[in-house]
């Protein structure tokens, strides 16, 4: 039964990683990356490595998305004057 769980988790990881590569929008990539992180955490747990799963969860579920989204906001704000950004400037808070 453990093998079935491992195989399903591996397929989820492979699917999420592929989707992250195929997406072009950084925000959407961040969301797929969050999914990838949780799938990896599940895989690590099924492989009896909860310590690694915890590391992955701690970093992947809140800190990494926050860093990516902050960077996207900064970069969009910088380039906003030259060629219209996806997000109107001046909404940062």
């Amino acid at each position, binding site marked *: 039964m453990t093998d079935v769980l491992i195989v399903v988790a591996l397929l989820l990881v492979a699917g999420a990683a592929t989707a992250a590569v195929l997406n072009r929008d950084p925000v959407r990539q961040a969301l797929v990356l969050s999914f990838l992180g949780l799938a990896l955490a599940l895989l690590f747990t099924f492989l009896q490595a909860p310590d690694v799963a915890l590391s992955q969860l701690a970093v992947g579920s809140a*800190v990494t998305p926050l860093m990516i989204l902050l960077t996207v906001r900064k970069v969009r704000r910088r380039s906003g004057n030259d060629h219209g950004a996806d997000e109107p400037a001046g909404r940062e808070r």
Partner: protein
Amino acid sequence: MSFRFRLWVFLVGAAGFAVLFAVACFGLPAFGSGHHPYGVRAVRASLNHHTANVIASVNFDLRAFDTLGEETILFAAVLGAVVLLRQTQDERRKTPEPAVVHPRVRRFALLTLPLALLVGLYVIAHGQISPGGGFQGGVVTATALHLLYVASDYRALERVRPLTVYEIGEAAGEAAYVVTGFAAVLAGSAFLANVLPFGTLATLSSGGTVPLLNAAIGLEVASGVVVLLARFLDQAVEIEEPGEDEESGDPREIEKPRESQGPGKPRESEEPRGCGRPKESEGPEASGASRDDDNRDDKRE
């Protein structure tokens, strides 16, 4: 270099890697087999030192020196981010606009905040007993603080986050690890050797130096992540480049950069400005123009 040529370089490299990888895979022990020469020894060593979580024993006892290296990498990475993302002289700080948060979300975030901190401290404290440890717990602890950003806005977070304390905390965590290592030397053993009494298996005081090193890492990681995220938040929310956001007529702007400059040294001469962000060290007006040039360069490539 043409596309076809690059493709060939890639294919040759990939083929070589595939062959070596396949050969290496055949040399691996079978997946899920019962034969674990390293695992058996690690578990024995861990139980000898009364550490219930073998991973913690490997990280903070058998290979404590490796972990010192890893901790230093994180320390250096945070330091690098702090240097690169500092406020330069032509950038200005503005007060971020207050966010409108749904009261339900605000209440939930405020209730989760102490709980998340408690869970983080729990994970740090029980590193030698259950899954987790200083790194995992440290990141959870740092995340807990940023629930305040979710509950309200960046100004609320800044009120309970004296950044200097966290900068000191990061350095203190790194130092505590090294000091624990040298304490073992003073006790007549090797650097980072486990010299303390091992205690009773599966209690908080078990594992000798393992819980101490865990706590040092927890302090370093929690403070380091807070400092790191503070720089990202500063850049994204507060710091404004010249010509970046015209609508800001806020009188509360702070004109001077926050970082103290070297005594008597003009800032321009002592640091290479162009390395982190493409910008020339001319006046604010001129740098806006040069930034446009940079962007044009980007588009051409």
